[in-house]
């Protein structure tokens, strides 16, 4: 499907989808907390636009509902919640030192290529003209997971988690034109409760560990030597001379 022949709306869909993918890469590279939250909000907004456009192209009524849900959740509620929390935790200004950014971005690119390779087998099934954006949705989801694996701060991990969720929502609305209503509401409700719980946990973590750096949470570790069992006489012959009468 050459880009040229597509209608104006389809071109807009592909543009916005590409921009959403860009925001995922921006989030990977973003060190400071506030810009990270704003980029996440932008990604939510772009995905809402794509959903609206797809709804118009394929005139599915209930897609508008899921677009509205995405907008409310991913653009308004969650970013505002995270912003207020980081202000109360006074961490909106501290910057996180990303390990080796270039390697991270390259692996991001590899992930995109891989998700396109994975999606190739299912794309032919979709009726949508611009069906390649399914690959974009998979890419956003995998990049969100990569973000969680890499970042140290708990808030960054939550944002990674939320961007994964938005990737999945986007895939649902693009490939299957939105899930049945009851499921959309259920999922949205779960994500809302999850974000509230994350907020509660930020305060617990800060009280007990003194910081939101995820790297310090390793009290429950079994790898260090202390736990290793001494191997010597454990299976030795039990018969010690004459000790039992």
């Amino acid at each position, binding site marked *: 499907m050459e880009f040229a022949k597509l209608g104006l709306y389809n071109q807009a869909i592909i543009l916005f989808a590409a921009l959403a993918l860009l925001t995922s890469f921006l989030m990977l590279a973003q060190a400071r907390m506030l810009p990270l939250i704003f980029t996440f909000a932008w990604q939510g907004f772009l995905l809402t636009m794509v959903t609206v456009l797809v709804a118009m192209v394929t005139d599915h009524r209930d897609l508008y509902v899921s677009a509205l849900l995405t907008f409310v959740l991913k653009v308004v509620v969650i970013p505002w919640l995270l912003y207020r929390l980081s202000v109360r935790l006074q961490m909106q200004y501290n910057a996180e030192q990303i390990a080796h950014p270039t390697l991270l971005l390259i692996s991001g690119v590899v992930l995109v290529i891989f998700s396109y390779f994975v999606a190739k087998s299912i794309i032919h099934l979709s009726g949508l003209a611009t069906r390649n954006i399914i690959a974009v949705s998979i890419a956003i989801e995998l990049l969100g*997971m990569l973000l969680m694996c890499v970042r140290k701060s708990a808030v960054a991990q939550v944002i990674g988690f939320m961007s994964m969720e938005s990737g999945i929502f986007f895939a649902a609305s693009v490939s299957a034109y939105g899930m049945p209503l009851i499921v959309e509401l259920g999922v949205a409700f779960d994500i809302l409760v999850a974000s509230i719980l994350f907020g509660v946990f930020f305060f617990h973590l800060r009280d007990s560990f003194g910081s939101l750096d*995820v790297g310090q949470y390793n009290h429950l570790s079994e790898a260090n030597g202390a736990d290793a069992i001494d191997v010597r006489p454990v299976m030795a012959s039990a018969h010690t001379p004459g000790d039992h009468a």
Partner: protein
Amino acid sequence: MADLSPALTLAFAGAACSVLSGLVSAAAFRRHPDYLHTGSFLFLFLAGCCTSTAGAWALLDNLTQTAQLQMGLPWLAWHLRLDALSGFFMILLGTLVIAVSLYGPSYTREFARGADAQPLPPLGIFTALFVLGMQVLLIADDALVFMIFWEMMSLSGYFLVVFQHQHAANRNAAFIYLLLAHVGALVILLSFGVLAAFGNGLTFDQMRAAHLSPLWASIAFACTFIGFGTKSGMVPLHVWLPEAHPVAPSHISALMSGAMIKMGIYGIIRVTYDLIGDVQWEWGMAVLIIGTASSVLGVLYALMQHDLKRLLAYHSIENIGIILMGLGMSMIFLGTGHPLLGTLGLVAALYHTLNHALFKALLFLGAGSVLYRTHAHDLDQMGGLIHRMPVTAFLFLIGCIAISALPPFNGFVSEWLTFQTALQAPALENSVLRSTIPFAAALLALTGALAAACFVKAFGMAFLGKARSRRAALAREAPRGMLAGMGLLALLCFLLGVFPSTVIGLMAPITQLLVHDALPSATAQGWLWLTPVSAQVASYSAPFVVLGLVLVFGLGYLLLKRGSEPVRRSDPWDCGFGALSPRMQYTSSAFSQPIRRVFRGVWNIEEHIDTLTAPGPLARVTSLHYSVHAHDWSWQWCYQPIGRLVLAAANRIGFIQTGNIHTYLKFSFVTLLVFLWIVS
């Protein structure tokens, strides 16, 4: 259930009695424990009687009865079957249970008293479950019922071994016992799996109908032999036996050494002869080699022990070795097409199983009554008990003579039959076999002689000479119940020794069932003579031997003793330098010192010389204590490495649980990517 044949109903009655005995002893938790405790042993006695009569009935009438119980899985009801083979083993089990139930009440009361007293009800419950397991195991006719009651036997054995759990050694011993029992059971499960796969069904009849390729038959046999061999304590897998038997209460070690090990032998015979059917001679070779190794190593290690019950436990390994030699030779002869000689080998093995059950149980009960009175495990703390416990000494002596395979008693008959099987080796065409079997027979002779040496030591140190400890000096005769239990077994040892041909005649239905052949010539010459192959080849008449001995005693009394003056007592020869003290006697490690020097490499010897020096400037040595322990090489070579391997692997695997969340996320991320890559 209605159409049950009489013998099977009797077997069920036996099982029901043992369940009742368990319930009665469970009820004895609070109210009047003593009375209920003896009540549980009464039900155990009834269970023993029912089982042995059911077995005798099945054996005499040579009838095979089957039944189905609507328990277990709906599409696999419990199949039960009582035939000649299980009948024989039920007689063995029943007799032992009767003896133990006579012995038990007075012996176990002592556990409730004393410093480390233990509540008695668990002992009663698990003894009942132990006996129940064995009873139903013998009449099981499908893999599910067999495995259920097999592992119930092992599990209740574990609770009995760990009964006095305040000593760390007991707990360790029980753990090793249960570990090997569980692994053995799983290997048995695999062998049933192979048979079930080919017979596409779990019942033994479907397995009998299955025709396996030689390779798969060998795999099934290998699993069976290893699995049941672990339970009967053959050499490479014997480590649990000398640890578990000494720590269990004596009447339980008697049941274990007497009956539980024989269930392993029953399993091997049932699966190899009955389920798989056509025996290959290579199997016989493996069984013979392991049997010989077990017997020689068993007796050599027994010689070095100074704990009486541990010595008896090692001897169980030796006797299992002898039984396996008989089985091995029988398989070789069957494999190479000599059914008559194969039957002779099988009869020798079965006879020795029965004999060993009787005299080993007698010896353990004897050791138990010595322990009951002197609280001494160690031979070096006993001595001179023949004067204070004459009846126990006499019964223990009968056990010692029987186990050392000396003529008038039953041990000699079965070992003599095993020798006769070996002596038929020339009938084989394969010259390698023809030369290895005599070699195995020579090692069997060595085992016999070493066993005699070991039991001279055991009886001598325990009962003869002067008392080496204060408690041994103050010992009193064991209560009547215990003597009755031992007396019954001693009488059976004598009867089985003197009338072998009648017993072999009774065992004909078993070989008819398994090998479709019997030993006609064994009873051809009447009850007086035992001529296994033919009168010309070999014959042995036990009644005449007893007659000769009685004759000599009679003449001796008439001619010599009646007329002479009374006997004068005086001091023994002390080379003139004064009073002899009990410490001057030979101790058990001294007695076995020559043999220890001759067979040095066999044990992992650990010697201690602890010198106590008096304080002060002179620092002269006040006392020297020398002790020697022979540890099992298999601990160093086989069991500790496995233990270390498992724990090292466990340590290394710890790296998965690093504790920080990033690694966990990376794990799931990589798993997802790998799966995606596999799929597309």
